[in-house]
């Protein structure tokens, strides 16, 4: 990854305009051609440094429901509980973190009803309480790479 790649990643995180040729302005700013920009972007995607380039959806506006969920699980049961949580396709990220609440996952469902259903299933399967914390406000961001 060189400085041009890093500047490209920063620019892409800010978002591109909806336009016939959406890459042109960024390519100009970086002083490279569109073909080179696309080749660099493809390489970053191939190396899995970036997720796909495309629309970031607002799940709630689509009628869906997203929340961050936390559970406090006994250490010896953590792997098993993580596995049963992961078995739900609506679970995205799932991390072990250093805290009494040690299992943190993102639950994204099509409807609020389905959300409640999956939470209840996970509580029943694990025997652990799930703390469900939907986003109330987002203050955005991105990872700024030093160029």
């Amino acid at each position: 990854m060189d400085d041009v790649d890093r500047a490209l990643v920063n620019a892409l995180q800010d978002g591109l305009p909806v336009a016939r040729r959406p890459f042109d302005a960024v390519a100009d700013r970086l002083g490279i051609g569109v073909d080179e920009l696309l080749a660099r972007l493809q390489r970053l995607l191939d190396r899995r440094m970036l997720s796909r380039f495309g629309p970031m959806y607002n799940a709630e506006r689509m009628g869906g429901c997203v929340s961050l969920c936390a559970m406090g699980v006994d250490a010896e049961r953590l792997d098993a509980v993580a596995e049963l949580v992961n078995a739900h396709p609506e679970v995205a990220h799932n991390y072990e973190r250093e805290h009494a609440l040690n299992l943190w996952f993102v639950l994204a469902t099509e409807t609020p009803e389905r959300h409640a259903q999956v939470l209840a299933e996970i509580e029943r399967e694990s025997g652990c309480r799930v703390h469900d914390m939907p986003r109330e406000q987002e203050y955005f961001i991105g990872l700024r790479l030093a160029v």
Partner: protein
Amino acid sequence: MELSDTDRALIAAVQEGLPLVPQPYAEVAAALGTSEPDVLARMARLQEQGLIKRLGVVVRHRALGYRANAMVVWDVPDDAVEDTGKRLAAEPCVTLCYQRPRRLPDWPYNLFCMIHGLTRESVLQRLQTLVETQGLQGVRHEVLFSIRAFKQCGARYATTRKQEDYRGVAHG
């Protein structure tokens, strides 16, 4: 929010990513059997309506070497949470910042931010600088480093009965 069938087909067509060509919407339009201006108008409308937040990428922090990943959580008085959230989000080391409900008595924190770094030491150092520069010494907070990632895929989100994946919804 009511979506037309064409809007749904468009969302399904671009959810795995836009074609990496100079005019991606022309290619999408050809696949959908419509015109480039029609696709552009629909994309612009979805963005105006807020269904699409932006067109961009999500950085895979770990792949870039940012292996230390701390969720820093703060118990901010309700009347100060918006101001504090905005100030945290403006800090270059903060990659995400959300307000969420407290879950008392187990969980007293209402503001969540992520700080990524190459090492734990660098994350803690950045946090200390942030606390000092933002005057947050009096705000109770905790640092939850991640230990293991059990699952790490783009959130799957379906709005159709076909259970299509809507990738690109991340981080709750």
